[in-house]
């Protein structure tokens, strides 16, 4: 009889842990084009299953989370740097200034230029670590939150 093979014990994690890995990919790669397939792959699930479970777990779609991250960074850059709006647009992962401006206005309420004029310099919230600032800056009810171009990860 062959001796029993001993395998190292491997912790098993709930699906949420794998979805979190995909959400982290958004946080680390938001400046690059990210599509649904790449995010689903990071979570080791099918794209269709991924979108549904992501929303169920985190309360928003992957694309909404991606936009939140990009717009948070855009607001930071507009407040604290001299970068042109077009440079900010590209720096946070948008490919079209028109799309960026429209999305920014929809989410923030004013255009990037107006936002910079009204919020020049750091705010009190800028001392708060990003994860808290982003979580608490999220708008309740995400149904109206979308980009004007075809989303790749919703």
């Amino acid at each position: 009889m062959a001796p029993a093979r001993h395998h190292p014990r491997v912790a098993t994690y709930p699906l949420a842990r794998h979805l979190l890995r995909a959400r982290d990919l958004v946080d680390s790669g938001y400046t690059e084009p990210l599509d649904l397939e790449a995010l689903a792959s990071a979570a080791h699930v099918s794209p269709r299953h991924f979108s549904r479970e992501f929303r169920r777990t985190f309360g928003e779609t992957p694309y909404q989370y991606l936009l939140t991250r990009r717009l948070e960074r855009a607001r930071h850059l507009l407040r604290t740097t001299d970068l042109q709006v077009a440079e900010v647009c590209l720096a946070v992962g948008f490919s079209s200034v028109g799309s960026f401006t429209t999305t920014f206005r929809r989410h923030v309420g004013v255009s990037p230029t107006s936002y910079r004029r009204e919020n020049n310099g750091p705010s009190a919230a800028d001392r708060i670590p990003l994860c808290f600032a982003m979580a608490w800056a999220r708008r309740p009810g995400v149904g109206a939150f979308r980009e004007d171009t075809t989303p790749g990860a919703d």
Partner: protein
Amino acid sequence: MLEAVSHVAVWVHDQDEAKAFYTEKLGFEVREDATLDELGGYRWLTVGPPDQPDVNLMLTQPGPPAFDEDTKNEILALVAKGALGPGILRTEDCRKTCKELEERGVELASQPEERFYGIDATVRDPSGNMWRIVQPIEYDLEAMKS
């Protein structure tokens, strides 16, 4: 008079895996690792940064009899979805530290990024606990707008 924060609990799915991550990846040292037979095999496992001997993380695995199965699963589900991020780790050089961590196989949850309060990045332990790695800079609160 309270003197200091000495121990902070970090919920983990698997103590062996957590111990390996915090020591081999983050460079912490094991302070205590005791399996207590008189407590049904409860494992008291603490780690901490070598240069900060009075602060300990208690790497704690929830489960019976302290927590019933449902409660255990609820705690671990919250950890797994990143809802129980434990805290912030300070470094003198965020980019250098992150490079070293990546060389040890740590996957950054966010890359070093300049913020108003410093340069910061993020790592997660295997369970899902998030640690921000911050290279702080001095800032003037008075000069900030409310």
